[in-house]
């Protein structure tokens, strides 16, 4: 984390935070047929109470009736509305300026959202004719349509020839049955005043809690509020470094990317002076000798921002009435 300028008296920390997940989704019969069709340069719609829906949906938006009657529509269409995007964002379909468009494909009664590749906004207008530009490699995804491009044949404003909407059984060889849609969002994480104070103290190998002005409990790590009183914790209190194991578990499953041999012990540790136990790994003692009441102290490793683990101090065990309230 790095410090950013803030109001007087604070020095808030910030750090980049990326949330990324490859959502894997299965497709029903309608979505499977539509996306497989795109792979084969075929656009399918579905017959509903409001006409032909493209892209197709599984249930009628007006009646909620199940829809199954697929039809093939054209690959050219008419722009129903548009918006010029002068500064494309990183994951959008085209890297240069483009128009967002809703396109009613020939034979369809509803419009498909996509992008239109034209040199500038002067070339775009509602009612213009456009056609699909297919992606060179297609996998069964909406991005198999690389974009739309102007279609000058026939000229604008010529009513499109009534294109027969042909029934289609939706059957293709090796249909696409699922898609993976990676989602990535980039954030700047800011932990707030209380956690900033805690993290800054950790940088000096000190562990600090904050005391509730109402019930006087000391919370570690502090989050800025007493969860029972609902008021801001204010007074900073240095706690530990020694503490008492209040409860623990033995971990037998090796975590990916974690260089710790199993089995190991993960424990709740009540640091001296704290009214809430925090989590930590117990080392320096065989896993089957860890016990409630064991007195421990933090072990810091070079460059670490928090204790690597806690080890026995060698003191006698704490009597159970000293930590019973913290269980």
């Amino acid at each position, binding site marked *: 984390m790095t410090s950013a300028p803030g109001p007087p008296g604070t020095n808030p920390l910030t750090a980049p935070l990326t949330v990324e997940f490859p959502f894997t*989704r299965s497709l029903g019969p309608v979505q499977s047929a539509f996306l497989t069709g795109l792979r084969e340069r075929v656009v399918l719609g579905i017959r509903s109470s409001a006409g032909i829906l493209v892209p197709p949906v599984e249930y009628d938006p007006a009646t909620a009736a199940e829809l199954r009657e697929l039809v093939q529509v054209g690959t050219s269409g008419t722009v129903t509305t548009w918006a010029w*995007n002068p500064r494309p964002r990183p994951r959008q379909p085209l890297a240069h300026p483009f128009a*967002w468009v809703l396109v009613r494909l020939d034979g369809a009664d509803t419009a498909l959202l996509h992008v239109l590749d034209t040199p500038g906004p002067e070339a775009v207008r509602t009612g213009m004719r456009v056609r699909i530009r297919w992606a060179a490699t297609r996998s069964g995804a909406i991005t198999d349509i690389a974009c739309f491009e102007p279609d000058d044949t026939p000229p604008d404003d010529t009513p499109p020839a009534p294109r027969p909407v042909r029934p289609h059984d939706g059957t293709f060889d090796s249909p696409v049955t699922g898609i993976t849609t990676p989602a990535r969002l*980039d954030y700047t994480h800011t932990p*707030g005043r209380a956690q*900033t104070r805690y993290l800054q103290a950790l940088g000096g190998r000190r562990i600090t809690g904050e005391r509730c002005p109402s019930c006087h409990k000391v919370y570690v790590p502090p989050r*800025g509020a007493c969860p029972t009183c609902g*008021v801001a914790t204010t007074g900073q209190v240095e706690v530990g470094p020694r503490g008492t194991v209040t409860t623990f578990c033995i971990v037998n499953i090796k975590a990916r990317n974690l260089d710790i041999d199993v089995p190991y012990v993960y424990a709740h540790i009540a640091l001296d002076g704290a009214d809430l136990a925090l989590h930590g790994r117990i080392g320096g003692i065989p896993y089957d000798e860890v016990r409630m009441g064991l007195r421990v102290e933090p072990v810091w490793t070079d460059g670490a921002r928090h204790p690597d683990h806690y080890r026995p101090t060698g003191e006698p065990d704490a009597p159970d009435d000293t930590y019973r309230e913290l269980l």
Partner: protein
Amino acid sequence: MTPPADTAPVAVVAFAQTVHRRRTDELSETEMLMPVLHEVLAATGLRTADIGFTCSGSSDYLAGRAFSFTLALDGVGAWPPISESHVETDGAWAFYEAWVKLLTGETDTALVYAYGTSSAGDLRDVLSRQLDPYYTAPLWPDSIALAALQARALIDAGHTTGPALAAIAARSRADAAANPYAQLRGAVTHGDPLVHPLHTGDCPPVGDGAAALVLAAGDRARELCARPAWITGADHRTEAHALGVRDLTDSPSTRHAARRAGAFDRPLDLAELHAPFTSQEVVLRRALDLDERVRVNPSGGALAANPVMAAGLVRIGEAAAAIHRGEADRALAHATSGPCLQQNLVTVLEGEA
């Protein structure tokens, strides 16, 4: 719906909000929220333990903090244990849940709050993740692009013009000059087209903020507030998910919700509309049949402060506060969620003469 005749009426008895700001880097969400909770409780003299039901609205996607609503509860003070619920959308829907809870008669007070930290991520990208994941989200259309498609459709249909949209922007920010909580106030340059035809000035500021209000039923409301803002009806409706199926120039869901909430039964004198984009005010005015006799968004609306997930609840709070102050007798509050006004909630509030 309008409340059944045999239930005690429910009112908004207190409202508080943060000063909405572009960034709140020095605060956690709990730290941002807590002063608002304290303010709204202090206004009624209630303590957390006195509140019968607590309901909140927020979304983890805004700040990228998993289960942040559970941490936010630290600011409420959840001991002794409280009856609590959360909606993963604007706090206006938390308000609706609390209202229904009070109508059941199970309790006579409720605390509703909402917060959003839009500054942590890139809001245009973050909001794109709420779109249909099969046909739409893989194209990463951002919130401004989708609103711009709607604006173009309105201009093409002859319902507005670029200068008319700019006038809505100017009026909103001018009105917000009197709102100490607003983020954008006074003369604000309309700016360049951001996504044509929407200019920077047609779009809401990105910012962080929180809001809270207290609801109470029957005599309890009269004890807690000199002039309660009685909820005479509230309803919410949604439209088809696929944008290409909808007529983007209209909002039948808003109109339907308003009719069910009784909005058209008698004249209104104030409307707080949750229209983050100037073009959406055009859609909502048409859907709600608002004429020049109705004051629209004297707070400046979402164009002046748009803490996502709280902005809809702020509309209800602003409308209620106008009744508390005696500045309005019958007010409508609208909240929206989703692209191009997809989901819409309408509340009607009245003060006693």
